[in-house]
């Protein structure tokens, strides 16, 4: 048996009240009097003759009438049809990203959005065949309830939704919603969000009936948007912690940053955050073992989720680099200077005997007899399985574009670099082109299976690049990017909501995961599986995984500048030309009978009280 409005059982609390009143009710006291004549006269006089006179002063009657009126109103099930949604199918998209945890609305934006969404559910005109879908866009888009007109199920779906610490991933949810309403002219999407959505350009040309319910009113927030641990370049025995704090308020504030290693406070520093700016800070800390650095920002703001970040820092390991070359002093020097832990060896060929002994192999214009299995920097070689044939050659390709946002090209510029001769290939599927000539990509970086590869399509000695400062920087970046330890460290630092993946060296049957709030979950792992995947990373913090005898920790962080800017947006920009304005209109068909019934009850109790007071 199910109840449409189980909340109505709260009315059962009035039953004891009725019992109490029954106990209070007084029986009529029988008294023998000399004559009832005077009483009859008295009653006849007080209940005067005129019908309206009779109503005067009779508050009991008025109260009873009022109560009946309210009950009748309640039974009539009144509703307010302000802006009634005519949509037969309504897709509710509830933003469950980190910024929805902001407390500028009471108790939080998410709770308010949930309340408004439930109001929309209550207003659903099920009688006219109205249906609703509930999507929650947290770490990933989740269809909490498929199309139904069952209000209880919809409410349950909304009440079961949980806010996450992840970035906004509304595009995914809107994509799902859009497929649901496609070819339904009577369908509409109701988005409950604060509008901190970076990229919605893909919906620009879609005919989407999107109704944006804005939640939130303030923008008081400062948050950590970047946190990284690197070897200290000045003292390799110590670690440098880089932290960026964004202040999205129009005034500068002082905030305290605390750095802790494995829960032990290491250093604390007060920094002044410039208004609407990002302030970097560097901390130096020594580290004796693998562990987790946690940065905590202590300031008064509305969003707590971005006031903390943690990163797993492993002890630095030596990088064994094999340079296979016919002689390239520039490259050799650049590799040797790439990092404090680089152990460089040079060879003329990469043979089977070398396999697996190096973290990183550099092929400088040499086709090896045995292709290395590890990470690879390949210069001016073109194996046939990397590129679609034909592989041609071009003379003096001009460098027209490079992706300076890629970590490999950090601080690297290709201004004033000339190349004499290059290979002409088509852009491959396994990587992205970082440097482009009009005819061909010149530098490609990507991943093939578990192997990271950087391909340079020209001989560096046939270019002016080694003479530029960008060359050693690029090589250092490349060594860093190709270092398996870096990849491993990146593996242990994920964004909240992303899945954590860990290759399994040996088969295990069970993984024990300790999530940030301290609870322990046991997950069975298939014996044949070669990878452990943990997807429930909606909460930020440090997750510890016990896999057999092996224990690893990984951290999930928000670290998202767009999410830290919690100022609600009045409009949603769908690309450059389409805007969706926030609606403030109340969506209607809100039933009010509960309130009328409640008022009726109140009047009845008042009437009872009045009745007893006057006879006391």
């Amino acid at each position, binding site marked *: 048996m199910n109840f449409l409005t189980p909340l109505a059982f709260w009315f059962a609390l009035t039953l004891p009240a009725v019992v109490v009143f029954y106990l209070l009710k007084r*029986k009529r006291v*029988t008294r023998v009097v000399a004559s009832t004549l*005077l009483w009859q006269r008295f*009653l006849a*006089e007080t209940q005067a003759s005129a019908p309206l006179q009779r109503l005067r002063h009779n508050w009991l009657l008025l109260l009873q009438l009022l109560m009946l009126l309210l009950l009748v109103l309640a039974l009539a099930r009144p509703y307010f049809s302000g802006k009634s949604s005519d949509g037969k199918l309504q897709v509710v998209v509830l933003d469950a990203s980190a910024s929805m945890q902001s407390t500028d609305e009471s108790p939080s934006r998410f709770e308010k959005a949930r309340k408004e969404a439930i109001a929309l559910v209550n207003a659903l005109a099920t009688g006219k065949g109205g249906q609703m879908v509930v999507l929650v866009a947290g770490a990933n888009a989740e269809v909490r309830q498929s199309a139904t007109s069952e209000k209880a199920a919809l409410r349950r779906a909304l009440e079961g939704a949980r806010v996450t610490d992840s970035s906004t991933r509304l595009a995914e949810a809107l994509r799902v919603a859009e497929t649901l309403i496609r070819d339904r002219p009577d369908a509409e999407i109701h988005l409950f969000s604060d509008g901190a959505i970076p990229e919605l350009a893909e919906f620009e040309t879609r005919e989407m009936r999107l109704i944006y319910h804005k939640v939130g009113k303030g923008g008081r927030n400062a948050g950590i948007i970047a946190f990284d641990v690197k070897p200290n370049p000045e003292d390799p025995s110590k670690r440098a912690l880089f932290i960026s704090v964004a202040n999205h308020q129009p005034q500068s504030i002082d905030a305290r940053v605390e750095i802790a290693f494995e829960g032990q406070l290491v250093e604390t520093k007060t920094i002044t955050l410039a208004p609407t700016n990002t302030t970097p800070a560097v901390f130096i800390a020594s580290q004796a073992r693998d562990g987790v650095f946690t940065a905590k920002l202590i300031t008064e703001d509305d969003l707590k989720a971005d006031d903390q970040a943690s990163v797993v820092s492993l002890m630095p390991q030596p990088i064994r680099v094999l340079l296979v070359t016919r002689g390239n002093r520039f490259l050799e020097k650049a590799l040797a200077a790439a990092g404090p832990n680089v152990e460089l060896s040079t060879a003329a060929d990469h043979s089977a005997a070398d396999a697996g002994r190096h973290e990183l192999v550099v092929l400088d214009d040499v086709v090896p007899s045995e292709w290395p299995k590890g990470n690879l920097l390949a210069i001016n070689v073109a194996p046939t399985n990397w590129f679609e044939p034909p592989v041609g050659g071009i003379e003096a390709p001009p460098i027209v574009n490079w992706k300076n946002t890629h970590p490999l090209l950090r601080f690297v510029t290709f201004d004033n670099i000339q190349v004499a001769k290059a290979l002409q290939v088509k852009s491959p599927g396994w990587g992205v082109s970082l440097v482009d000539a009009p005819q061909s990509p010149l530098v490609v970086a990507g991943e093939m299976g578990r192997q990271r590869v950087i391909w340079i399509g020209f001989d560096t000695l046939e270019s002016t690049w080694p003479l530029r400062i960008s060359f050693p920087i690029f090589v250092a970046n490349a060594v860093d990017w190709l270092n398996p330890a870096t990849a491993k460290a990146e593996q242990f630092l994920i964004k909240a909501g992303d899945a954590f993946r860990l290759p399994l060296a040996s088969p295990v049957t069970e993984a024990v995961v300790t999530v940030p709030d301290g609870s322990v979950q046991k997950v069975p792992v298939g014996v044949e599986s070669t990878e452990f995947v943990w997807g429930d990373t909606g909460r930020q913090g440090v997750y510890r995984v016990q896999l057999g005898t092996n224990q690893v920790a990984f951290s999930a962080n928000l670290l998202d500048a767009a999410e830290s800017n919690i100022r609600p947006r009045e409009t949603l920009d769908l690309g450059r030309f389409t805007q969706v304005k926030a609606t403030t209109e109340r969506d209607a068909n809100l039933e009010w009978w509960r309130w009328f019934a409640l008022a009726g009850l109140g009047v009845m109790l008042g009437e009872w009280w009045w009745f007893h007071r006057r006879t006391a």
Partner: protein
Amino acid sequence: MAGILTPQVLRRLEQFQLIAARRAKSSAKGERKSRARGQSVEFADYRNYVLGDDLRYLDWNLYGRLDRLFLKLYEEERELPVRIFLDASESMLFGSPSKFDFARQVAAAIGYVALCGFDRVSLHIFPELQATSDAEMLNFSQQMAIRGALRSVRGKKSSLQYFANLTALKAGGAADFNASLKRGVLESRQAGVAVVLSDFLDPAGYEPGLLALVGRGFQVNAIQILSPEEINPGTFGDLRLVDSESGAVQEVTFGKYRLAAYQQAVANYVQRLREFCKARGVHFFSVNSGESIEDLLLRQLRTAEMWG
């Protein structure tokens, strides 16, 4: 007479005499002026002698002067019949002191004044006695005897017996006010002073009874006796009131806030009664059985010139 009236009151009462507005019409001799001619010391008129007149009443001086026979006529002094209608119904037993006790004291006082003035006092007690069981028969016959004795009392020396009988009187039963007064009117041969002692709370009204008295020529004094509880009820809440006589049930929700309205209703009732009486030359008094009887006897009745 023990207790029914204090000696002080009795002494005061002895000074009073009932004032009759009309000449007495009683056939019995008494001390009241009457239209009848007869023997007394009070000269009234002369008339011519006719054969057979008592020669003792001839005015011999006139005969000497005028040589004609005139008979001297004197005013005959007759008694004044005082009829007291005493309500002895169940409802009169209420109140503290009960209305009946108060009524009997008034009846005793008026009777005493009348007896002192050589007037005939006859007490009509209503309702009629009704024996409800054998066990009450003895009581019943005793009461019948008392009532019979009170039907006609004359002479100051009878007052002791009169008081004793009044004290032994018991009330009870449901009264029919109008019927009782009408029967009293029919029973009386001569009109005189009538005193009605009742609470005037008969559902059938009081008008026909009083009108019958007035119509017969009685000089009517109506004394309404209400108990303090009737004037100022002290019971509040949801009440189920049972009429002591008719057994009728009246449900009333009564609170302090309605007290004033109730008292106004009582005052209205009394006022209507007062106006009815005034319009018909009836002396009307409304008294509270909880108050002192002396105020009524020594001041109110005197001010109203019932006695003086």
